[in-house]
């Protein structure tokens, strides 16, 4: 069903207004970027993806505990770096299409399906959709780990790191990775790699989220490591009642509370 005012192509309506504002000294707001450290590792019989949880808008931290690990299907997860909105929407879109495709072909989804859908979509937009993704999953053909860049290229590797903290993370992976890691070894390696990004990259911080995918299920670990918890305040900064003298008290009620019958949804 199409909307009444369906317009095709990019919407340039605000172009003139934004240009004018910029001229007058109001620069356009920076898109929320995920700064980010994201990492993926293939272990002996599972695959581990990790991410930090800081989202930045320029120099400000927009979200101290955001989720960068997205579900594409129960056996395929994706970590996203780059423009937060782009990673969110592109993974969500491909997740829906993979679910539909899986029902159509009557098979569990494969990682290469989501890889091809993502890279062909991103290539069509020539890099303007700023999504840099680490795609990992366990399907009928085994574990697979891919990186996908915004321009539409992909690489298949046993261990990967992406985002502004990738240099810190990859140095940990290059030092400590070996083939056929045990599940807990791989989780610890990923945690160390993400923490390298958290502590050495300004664009990454807060906690480490993990997801472990094996041939049966995926286990997300939200807040697997929290090395930046806020310390207890050292003093009590509350002012006791009476610090400010009350001269007069007037109470006006502006809200009326009514209890209605329950809304009937089904007959």
């Amino acid at each position: 069903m199409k909307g009444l005012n369906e317009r095709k192509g990019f919407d340039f309506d605000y172009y003139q207004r934004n240009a004018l504002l910029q001229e007058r000294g109001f620069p356009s707001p920076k898109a929320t970027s995920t700064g980010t450290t994201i990492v993926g590792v293939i272990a002996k019989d599972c695959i581990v993806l990790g991410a930090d949880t800081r989202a930045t808008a320029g120099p400000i931290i927009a979200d101290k505990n955001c989720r960068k690990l997205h579900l594409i299907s129960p056996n395929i997860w994706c970590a996203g770096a780059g423009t937060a909105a782009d990673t969110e929407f592109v993974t969500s879109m491909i997740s829906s299409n993979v679910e539909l495709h899986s029902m159509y072909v009557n098979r569990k989804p494969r990682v290469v399906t989501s890889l091809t859908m993502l890279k062909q979509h991103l290539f069509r937009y020539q890099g303007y959709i700023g999504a840099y993704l680490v795609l990992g999953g366990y399907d009928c053909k085994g574990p697979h780990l891919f990186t996908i860049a915004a321009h539409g290229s992909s690489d298949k590797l046993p261990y990967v790191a992406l985002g502004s903290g990738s240099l810190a993370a990859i140095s940990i992976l290059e030092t400590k990775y070996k083939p056929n890691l045990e599940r807990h070894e791989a989780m610890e390696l990923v945690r160390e790699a993400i923490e390298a990004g958290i502590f050495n990259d300004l664009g990454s911080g807060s906690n480490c989220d993990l997801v472990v995918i094996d041939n049966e299920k995926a286990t997300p670990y939200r807040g697997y490591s929290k090395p930046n918890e806020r310390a207890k305040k050292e003093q009590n900064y509350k002012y006791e009642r009476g610090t400010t003298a009350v001269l007069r008290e007037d109470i006006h009620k502006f809200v009326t509370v009514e209890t209605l019958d329950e809304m009937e949804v089904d007959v």
Partner: protein
Amino acid sequence: MATSVTDPLNVDINSIKKGEIRMGTTITALKYNEGVILAADSRTTMGAYIANRVTDKLTQLTDNIWCCRSGSAADTQAVADILKYYLSMYEVQYGITPTVHTAATLASEMCYTNKNMLSAGLIIGGYDEKTGGEVYSIPLGGSLHKQPLAIGGSGSAFIYGFCDANFKENMTKDEAVEFLKFAVALAMERDGSSGGTIRMVILNKEGMERKFFAINTENPIPRFYR
């Protein structure tokens, strides 16, 4: 990678898109007495960072036709995927396996028609029973060149002399492997955008054989005067 052709009417200053992943590269292919061999380095860069140090730049298009990719990783992966699709459709529609010439012509048409938007240098190599193997070079503009030896990518600039001095037609398999191994290794030595490991694909009537050379393994990369 050589700078792109500039149109005098529309100057393209930034042919390298920001944040784009490139395959600086050294890619080579030659025809030897029993077929063809393709060889490439394994480095993909994003600016000064090596995004993948073990890339496989040799992509299979059909059972007996492979291609080497250089330039933009996204562009060449997309072109190779579309080529693979066209060639498998060709086989279904015409009932015969496509020739190397067909694959090369399709590739050059794609590269030429979209030359303004693509940054892709390809070398197509394959084995046909009839011809005994062919190598085609498709540089940036989309032209097609059939050659007994083709080299491409930013690293190729450093080995023109070596190749001109040492290449012979109808080498044996071992001679050809040694020649290409040395050529790619020399280019990797001097070109910052090439490096890592050397991957090779040998195509002949027996089928396909892959070779892999890396330091500290039983198939090391040759070392030179340092």
